[in-house]
């Protein structure tokens, strides 16, 4: 057992932190307010190798391990949660399944530019009527010669306004329920593909979340990811990895909130002493640091388990559940420590507080994580 990063990982951490502080943080407030998708950030991140951190170098990635990936997402999210989720989706929800399930041709054609950050990916599973229960999705895929023809609508698609490539889940036979779900790699310039415009959200406001629509959209059968009916399996396996990314995002948001609350408590004076001299504030800070460390260890453990090619469904669900709820508590306490100022846009904590909220919802709500964990503990342990 060892909880220290290697020298290379520490170097990576420093490099990404510098990039995040110098390039990402200065725009965080502005894109939160305007909702403008930070495409230039993604391009620069791609040049640094952050679009496919754990992808092999031969497919355009940085060839690093999953713990390094956690470090990257945490550091970016510490500066800007929106930027964190954009990267997490491209890495975890798009590159990862292409590597795991893709054919060599698919990897060459799609994984390589996506992992290098020359293209941006999105993951299209959720529909208006199919959120936690994706088996109920209604987008259809009809085989027609060498093609499939897709029809349907997706919602809440991160990166959706700007993505060049979408992984789309559709049913080849609704009667088969989840066994009919099939995954397709769809270039965004395919005729019949359209996306909505930016939607204003409570937090992670510039992540390009929008609707996608497919109308008589033709995809060659060679761009089917996995076999017919494998889509549900692809989605579930992918979300296991995605949860590690979201856990790391939650940790980054909470870390930023904690650091700013710690600094504020040492500057702000009331009753002729610093806030940090009050025991109540000290105890808030102690709990925030403790929960942050616990979340980070759980997340690294999930990453380490994935890295060692073991089943990591349980570890990823626990990391995601714990880290997201931790982020909610820590950002709330950070705002409390800032008092009235924390409620204003003058300080960052109100943004952290808003950004943290989604981590308990997307890529599997806390309730879904608990169902997964209970299933493992009750039936599989």
């Amino acid at each position, binding site marked *: *057992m060892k909880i*220290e990063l290697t020298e290379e990982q520490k170097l990576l951490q420093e490099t990404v932190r510098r990039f995040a502080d110098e390039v990402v943080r200065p725009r965080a407030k502005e894109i939160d307010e305007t909702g403008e998708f930070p495409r230039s950030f993604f391009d620069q991140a791609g040049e640094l190798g952050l679009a496919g951190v754990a992808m092999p170098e031969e497919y355009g990635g940085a060839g690093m391990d999953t713990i390094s990936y956690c470090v990257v997402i945490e550091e970016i999210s510490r500066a800007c949660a929106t930027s964190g989720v954009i990267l997490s989706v491209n890495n975890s929800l798009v590159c990862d399944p292409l590597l795991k399930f893709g054919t060599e041709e698919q990897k060459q054609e799609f994984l390589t530019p996506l992992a290098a950050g020359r293209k941006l990916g999105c993951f299209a599973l959720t529909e208006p009527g199919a959120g936690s229960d994706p088996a109920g999705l209604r987008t259809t895929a009809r085989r027609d010669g060498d093609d499939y023809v897709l029809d349907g609508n997706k919602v809440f698609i991160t990166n959706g306004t700007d993505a060049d490539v979408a992984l789309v889940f559709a049913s080849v036979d609704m009667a088969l329920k989840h066994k009919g779900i099939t995954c397709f790699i769809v270039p965004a310039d395919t005729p019949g593909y359209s996306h909505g415009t930016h939607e204003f959200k409570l937090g992670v406001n510039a992540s390009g979340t929008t609707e996608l629509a497919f109308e008589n959209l033709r995809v060659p059968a060679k761009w089917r990811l996995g076999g017919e009916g494998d889509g549900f399996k692809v989605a579930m396996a992918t979300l296991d990895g995605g949860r590690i990314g979201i856990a790391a995002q939650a940790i980054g948001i909470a870390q930023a909130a904690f650091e700013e609350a710690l600094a504020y408590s040492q500057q702000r004076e009331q009753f002729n002493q610093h806030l940090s001299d009050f025991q109540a504030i000290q105890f808030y800070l102690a709990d925030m640091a403790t929960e942050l460390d616990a979340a980070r*260890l759980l997340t690294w453990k999930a990453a380490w388990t994935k890295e060692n090619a073991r089943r990591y469904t349980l570890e990823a669900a626990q990391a995601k559940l714990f880290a997201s709820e931790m982020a909610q508590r820590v950002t709330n306490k950070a705002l409390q420590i800032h008092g009235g100022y924390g409620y204003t846009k003058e300080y960052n904590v109100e943004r952290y507080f808003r950004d943290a909220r989604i981590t308990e919802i997307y890529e599997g709500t806390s309730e879904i994580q608990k169902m997964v964990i209970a299933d493992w503990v009750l039936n599989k342990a």
Partner: protein
Amino acid sequence: MTVLAEPKSDVIAAAAADTGVDFSLTEDQELLRDEVRRFAEQRIRPGVAERDREHRFPLDVFQEMGEMGLLGMLVPEEYGGAGTDTLSYLLAIEEVARVDPAVAVTMSVTNSVCCWPIVRFGSEALKRKVLPALAAGQTLGGFGLTEPGAGSDAGSLKTTARRDGAAGDHWILNGEKAWITNAGFAGWYVVVARTNPEAGKRGLSAFVVPGDAPGFSVGQPEEKLGLRSSRTAQIYFTDCRVPAENLLGEEGQGLKIALATLGHSRLGIAAQSVGIHQRALELAVAYAKDRVQFGVPIADHQAIQFKIAQIATELAAARALTHGAGAAEHTSQAGRLAAQAKVYASEAANRACWESLQIHGGNGFHEDYEISRLYRDVRVTTIYEGTSEMQRLVIARSLLAR
């Protein structure tokens, strides 16, 4: 019988370090954990409920544990100990606490607050005199810091020690210590007393007091909410004579030694908490699958599933913090990490026992069910060896000092 394998070689340690963050246990650690689990199930579990009911201290169990090397785990082999690493020690405590938290506290006290400060601060002669018998389980260890008027504020203690004898060849101790685990069964006590009334916190010194020292006596066993088969009592010093060579470290280092010792020992209590938490989860799972209400096992109800998921997730967090702090014991952040592990693991274990008992319903309130004992036993983990409040102060001071 010994289950404690040789420490791994530096070469293997160096190779393992290259993998960076690593949550695996070594083969030796896994072997030890399995062996202690087997021992705890076979030798500690029988009679655990009766011992609790009768407040009976299981000396025979400790004799066997001593023979296995479980009472001097952190004592170097040259002094008769097992010389294991901290994480192995924590794994062993966890396994023992999973079966009987009361046995685990005696184990933790002997290892962490008696043997450990003697190894760390004792003179060569003192180590040779005291450690072999403790490590072999021929006797147990005690620790006397707390007094009736000095709990969290240990620096305010009133027990005194003054030099006496022709050439100052012994110390005379006067005072009383409260809540002393293993009182009356311990052969040696690490005791902190005031040697200089003028010097405040620097006026304290630590001594190794033999259990048969003249002027040393033990009070009536305390009636406690939990850990009833562990022994807790006051100890008294009435012109108690202790040889000069039993001074631990130097004169005036008493508080430093006490705080360093508690800094280490809170890992043991964190591990004890993790062991109890683990058992609370196991009991909840077994009961939920067995108990049928509304025509289905209650494990089929989502409300029960979510409680179990929460217990399991907090267990994973508590274990990660505890093992992580154990693995990082020699780093600059060790003090904060150990305090974080202790406060989180103890509070999480309390929540886990509460929820596990809730899942058990009325049966959980009955003495026949193990969870009712764990629910009582776990309560002290947020109190002894530094309350949760003291842990938070330690953590906050570390954060604010950066």
